[in-house]
């Protein structure tokens, strides 16, 4: 009698675990679909589906994807870092600093390639510094990257001349037209280079995560650092490398933003770290690391962009912060319900 009971209980538990894993696999796509649906039925009275001004009109979709470029570029690398159980709060400031440096170089007569390469190398340097603080000096990631957040932001503000709010063309100097070719000029399907680069980055990082030892090692370090080190993984080197990768893509995202706005705004990357955390959590990466997926983070990133852009058309701008905060808290709760369970079991 009792064995039958436990047997049926076990079956029930198995089934609920199955259901949960199926929900976990697909809920994020459902959430994205629901959000898109919600914004597409809004304002239908003012114009038909797919027409000008509608959420799903080609113009609107292109605009949405163009504004999604920075987070798409950055969130993949951020996922890898979080899978390894580390965090980088300085990505927003690294973006701003890169945007400022890129705009400064363009304004001062450097051509595209040198400015592009130097900015990316600087990004690697910023990541290198973060990695050094975390792995070599062993400062807690949150504190170390909060310190560099402040430092990078300070540097970006210092590069911008006094009295100006950003690096931009003025009386003496003219910002060359070509600065916005990278993130604005259409190359394919109405979308600019920056977007296709972001797509390439996502594909590359997905492959890196799934097919190479980089992804496996990151997960191993996040799952159990001691076990990973004992089985011969050089955790210090791996984590350091991940910080450099994040710095690199933060710079790439920063110069896409600078190119999009045709100026170097030292505050343009503010709160990017929060957007990245939201995207990663929505994508089902565990807080403590050990598991996660780059491709799902991308869906999470699209959700944030849809909410940000979609809400702009329906409610006043001062609702933005509350909206984003709610998405973050919702992501935390969903993540708790669906991901953390596995740890306990």
């Amino acid at each position, binding site marked *: 009698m009792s064995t039958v009971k436990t047997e049926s209980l076990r079956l029930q538990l198995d089934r609920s675990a199955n259901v949960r894993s199926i929900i976990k696999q697909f809920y994020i796509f459902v959430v994205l679909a629901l959000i898109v649906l919600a914004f597409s039925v809004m304002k239908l009275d003012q114009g038909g589906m797919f027409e000008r001004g509608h959420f799903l009109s080609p113009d609107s979709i292109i605009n949405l994807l163009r504004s999604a470029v920075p987070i798409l570029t950055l969130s993949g690398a951020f996922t890898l870092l979080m899978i390894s159980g580390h965090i980088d709060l300085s990505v927003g400031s690294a973006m701003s600093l890169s945007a400022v440096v890129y705009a400064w170089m363009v304004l001062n007569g450097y051509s595209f390639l040198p400015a592009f390469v130097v900015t990316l190398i600087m990004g690697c340097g910023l990541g290198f510094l973060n990695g050094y603080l975390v792995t070599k000096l062993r400062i807690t990631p949150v504190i170390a990257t*909060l310190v560099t957040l*402040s430092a990078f932001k*300070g540097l970006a*503000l210092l590069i911008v001349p006094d009295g100006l709010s950003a690096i931009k063309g003025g009386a003496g100097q003219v910002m060359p037209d070509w600065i916005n070719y990278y993130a604005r000029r259409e190359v394919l399907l109405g979308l600019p280079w920056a977007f296709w680069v972001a797509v390439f980055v996502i594909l590359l990082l997905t492959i890196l995560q799934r097919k190479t030892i980089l992804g496996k090692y990151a997960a191993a370090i996040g799952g159990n650092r001691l076990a990973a080190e004992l089985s011969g993984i050089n955790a210090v080197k791996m984590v350091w490398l991940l910080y450099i990768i994040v710095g690199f893509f933060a710079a790439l995202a920063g110069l896409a933003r600078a190119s999009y706005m045709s100026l170097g705004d030292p505050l343009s990357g503010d709160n990017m770290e929060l957007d990245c955390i939201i995207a990663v959590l929505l994508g089902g990466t565990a807080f403590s690391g050990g598991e996660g997926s780059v491709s799902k983070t991308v869906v999470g990133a699209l959700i944030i962009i849809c909410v940000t852009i979609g809400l702009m058309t329906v409610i006043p701008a001062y*609702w933005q912060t509350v909206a984003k*905060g709610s998405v973050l808290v919702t992501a*935390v709760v969903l993540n708790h319900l669906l991901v953390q369970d596995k740890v306990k079991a």
Partner: protein
Amino acid sequence: MELKEVKHLRKPLMVSKISDESFITLFMLGILVIVFAIASVIVPNFYTAQNMLNLVTNNWFVIILGIGVTFVLITGNYDMSVGGNIALTGVLSVYFCQGVNVSQNALANGLGLPYPVAIGLALLCAMGVGAVNAFFIAKLKVPSIIVTLGTMMLARGAAQVITQGAQRNTSLPDAFGVLGSLGIPGTSIRLAVLVMITLIIVAYIIEKKTVFARRIYLIGANPEAARLSGINVGKYLTALYILSGLLAGITGILLASEFKAGVSSRAMGYEFDALVIALLGGVSITGGFGSVLGMFVGAIILSVVTSAATGMLLSPDWQFTLKAIVTFLAILAQRFALDKRKS
């Protein structure tokens, strides 16, 4: 042989007459003296009585926040929601006591409550933000840095919604500005500074003399051991986050009263400053270590550095870089000092 080993083990304990905590506080006090001496030599008009008083009185808000943040940090958690909480409480205290239907402008109309009721309710909301933090951290076991960043956005966002992204400063009762303008005549010591000093003393007594505080240290040093020895960790975390929210609320109300306005962008980045002064004062990042007095010393160090930078006519943009460098050096110096002492 055995006896020898025991003796050897006990030796460091017998040598150290003061605890590591007092050692770090004294160490940072030494650094404060050095930094102050350098600033006095380099910066003109720095070594004056008025300026020294200002170093303490101009930073009352960060120090009040620092008390809550220090206790939370001792348990090994972060509270990044304090800045948003200040903005929310300030705005609410204005909104609750603005007159009803006094103007066409939506920003001039409030709920028309008496001022004491208004600040009471605003403080309750501030504690509510702390309670939400505690719920996620103690019940759902979510990392505190992520949750409190979320509640920071929610609190500041709510302040922005109530003020429509700007500020509320009209149709306020006369009582509103009283708290912020009270003070000892002829000096820069205002009521807020006295509140800060009282809170520091109370916090110091709690920290040194109560079981409550000793248990907080245990939770920070080893949460699992604390739980196994019968401490209800969740309850303590809840109490601390609500306390931190309350302190942010008090700061928010005093600031709103001082400026006679509820501004939604008030206290941007204060959460970072509060964390920085706690770290400067030797509160350990990994929990279980630190003191309120150390935090106070840290606050004065930061204040000396920033006001010296202003005195040398550096552009205000320097503050971010300076704070980063000072924090980084402080973390390294403290670790170096503790390592030296132990070896």
